[in-house]
């Protein structure tokens, strides 16, 4: 059971997910572009953008799952990495506007002209090149996570304390990006994008292509995560999650293991943010809001942390629910979200996928017990399932 947890790498379920993602990458654009709008199989362009957004969220949830589900670090600041990646992409898109802005300045984005700036700040150099922006999408969140993690893990900041200071980190960034003189558009953020790599962002073909790229990038992220957690490093991560002190006493360096996971996860979140921005057409400081980062946690928790499939399912399901709620009964959405937080932690601590696994394992155990082949197996199986989830949040006393 729980083969997605311990080895196997790309097991059947993950292969299934990859198959769905790649076929969606092909099918959705086809149904959007080639099928006439009158057909019932037609997918409207707005739905393509919405689905693309969900996929970015799924990738973000997956990145959080890597640190929380597998390494036991509850980051309440993952939205910061997502937003930083988004800003890096937004800066590239801003530079692409060129003279088509309201003020028609060839170099300066509109908001800088508005603020009466005379020249481009140094940190905007290079963002007119796509390769540079793409590099920064990974480098900036990665470096921040590395610096933050290096400081935090080395001095053994753990548990609730770590969660709180990751929240402080994203809060500090929120305040910083709200400032006009930071040079990131202040309150309004970056918007009014025109095109990406020469393709108009308004064109349905570009939108369809962005969707496909998001689906494929998510597939790659799934593969990377699956391979990583089933490798030796992945086992060490799980060991740190379940018993950090014990891992240390066995001679490993938990801080390095955590730092690696944290950095990889931040890079993944940054890429998700970069894919998100061209599809929604705006990036502003509210993406740094601590509440957003906590919402990511609930996507992961709903789907099931410590599984590959869970965060993807959770992110899509919760955001679909959010879209539906905010359109149908907006005043009840916060009740639903709040209730979800409470219900999931109380009733479904393993999430949808984890609970499904446990239920299947129990059924299999019952069946084999019914056949009379083994009397001992069921309790063992149940015990292991419980262990993998419960210990993730309960640090073991040093022995």
């Amino acid at each position: 059971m729980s083969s997605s947890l311990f080895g196997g790498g790309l097991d059947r379920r993950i292969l299934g997910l990859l198959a769905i993602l790649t076929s969606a990458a092909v099918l959705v654009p086809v149904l959007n572009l080639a099928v006439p709008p009158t057909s019932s199989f037609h997918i409207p362009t707005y739905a393509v953008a919405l689905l693309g957004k969900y996929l970015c969220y799924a990738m973000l949830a997956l990145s959080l799952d890597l640190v929380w589900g597998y390494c036991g670090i509850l980051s309440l600041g993952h939205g910061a990495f997502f937003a930083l990646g988004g800003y890096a992409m937004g800066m590239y898109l801003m530079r692409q506007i060129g003279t088509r802005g309201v003020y028609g300045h060839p170099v300066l984005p509109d908001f800088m002209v508005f603020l009466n700036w005379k020249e481009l700040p140094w940190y905007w150099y290079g963002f007119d090149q796509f390769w540079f922006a793409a590099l920064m999408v990974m480098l900036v969140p990665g470096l921040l996570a590395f610096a933050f993690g290096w400081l935090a893990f080395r001095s053994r900041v753990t548990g609730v304390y770590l969660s709180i200071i990751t929240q402080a980190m994203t809060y500090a960034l929120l305040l910083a990006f709200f400032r006009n003189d930071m040079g990131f558009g202040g309150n309004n953020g970056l918007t009014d994008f025109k095109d990406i790599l020469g393709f108009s962002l308004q064109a349905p073909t570009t939108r369809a292509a962005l969707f496909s790229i998001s689906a494929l990038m998510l597939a790659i992220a799934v593969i990377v995560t699956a391979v990583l957690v089933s490798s030796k490093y992945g086992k060490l991560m799980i060991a740190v999650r379940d018993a950090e002190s014990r891992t240390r006493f066995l001679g490993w360096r938990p801080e390095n293991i955590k730092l690696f996971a944290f950095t990889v996860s931040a890079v993944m979140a940054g890429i998700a943010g970069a894919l998100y921005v061209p599809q929604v057409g705006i990036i502003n400081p509210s993406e740094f809001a601590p509440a957003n980062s906590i919402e990511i946690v609930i996507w992961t928790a709903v789907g099931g942390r410590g599984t590959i499939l869970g965060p993807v399912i959770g992110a899509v399901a919760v955001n679909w629910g959010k879209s539906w709620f905010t359109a149908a009964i907006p005043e009840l959405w916060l009740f639903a979200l709040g209730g979800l937080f409470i219900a999931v932690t109380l009733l479904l601590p393993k999430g949808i996928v984890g609970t499904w696994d446990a239920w299947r394992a129990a059924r299999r155990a019952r069946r084999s017990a019914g056949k009379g082949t083994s009397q001992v197996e069921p309790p063992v199986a149940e015990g292991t399932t419980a262990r993998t989830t419960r210990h993730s949040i309960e640090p073991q006393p040093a022995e």
Partner: protein
Amino acid sequence: MILRALWMLLLPLLLLPGVARGQDAPLGEIIARFANVEKFDQTEALVRELGATGDPGVRPVLEALAEGNLYVRKVDNAIFIVPGSGKVLKLIDPLTGEEADEASSSALKKVRVNNGLRRLIRDVLSTLTLGAKSAEARMAAADTMFANPDPAMIEALDAAIEAESDPAVKLRMERARAAAVVLSDLPESDKIAAIELLGSLGDRSVLSLLATVEANADGDLQRAAADAIAEIRSVLAAWDAAQNVWFGISLGSVLLLAAIGLAITFGVMGVINMAHGEMVMVGAYTTFVVQGAVHAFAPALQEWSLAFALPLAFLVAGAIGVAIERGIIRFLYGRPLETLLATWGVSLVLQQAVRMIFGPSNREVGNPSWMSGSFEIGQMVITWNRLWIVAFSLGVFVLLLFVFNRTSWGLHMRAVTQNRRMASSMGIRTPWVDAFTFGLGSGIAGIAGVALSQVGNVSPNLGQSYIIDSFMVVVFGGVGNLWGTLLGAFSLGIANKFLEPYAGAVLGKIIVLVLIILFIQKRPRGLFALKGRAVEA
């Protein structure tokens, strides 16, 4: 000029009751002459003459003239004060202040004034009040003259200083005189003495005056001015620092109130209550409701509605806290991160519930009269509501210290904080302690809400705006000791307010956050960390 000097010397005498009344007849004559003025310098002469009478009765005329309300009736050249405008105007006798007649606007001619005249009138009026009976009026007059120093006033001030008995008023007059002397053409030694006096008083408003002196003079005078400026600057810097410390203490006391409940629950139960901010909000809304109820049912008790709100807010927030503990947290025992998520869910629900009941807009809670207004110490301004909140938060802190250190509940709480299993083995009912602690922490958040309703608006987001700062206080102060929270709250408050003038409010806050993140590296569990084996669990 000589005439003026004379009347200035006589002023105290003239203002004695009875003496002043004797001036009625000439006053009327002077006023009547306004009918014949053709040029501004004639008006000016008249104004000076009126001032020279030293009669407080000229005040209404001069005020009316400055406001352009003094009119001549064309038929008989009589002078009237005409307030307001329109077709038919009321005419008021300038001496008696009684309504004399009515006339159409076309039958009247305005006595014209210009800015130079207005300034003169203001000066004359203020010199008149230098001899006023109430010390407050005299002080106000001296301050007006200080704000617009005029060498012509020196004699008047000398006379007033001579006659002044109130030392505070005398000081103000001397200050005004010094400012006038600096601008006069008196000998340099007088000016230097005046500059020294101004320097020693250390007031922001003389800086520009001294700067002009420094720029235009040379030699000793310039040096004296430069010295005085430096002296004033250093005095001001000290007062600014004191004011910042006060702002910091005030912010710190709010943080202390908001964070101390959080610190207690975190210490005892090891869980961060993300709904803590919402308890603060609930407390603030309780105050709002109580104030409304008192207003409706017992308006006489309005001043004391806070006294009802305080226990009620504690009970309401405490009850919600106990309900959360019994309903949710109890089942998540030993899983602090999941507790954090569940309480976040609770906070969303509470926020939305309040938003639906009371509406999303800000609600205003009034201050009782004993909490409004402010007073000054030197050059610092202290508002009463802030002072009350500082006192209140310290009171709550002392009360909690007492509960912690002198009651059996406190003993149990400390025992559970230090080693839960051991405490449990010794017969302490840890679930009860948990529920009590959570209720206590939430209740204190509730009374923090009462206090916060006095310094800001009450909105559904009230809690959110304080919660991250409260976390920072707890993380910085540690949970081993209530003193840690006190120290954490005040150092964060003061650090914030000290950085604000240099870096701006937002950047200051960012710097504080970064400093805390760095501080955590050195002391991962705050200033006052628990020591011992149980900690590493």
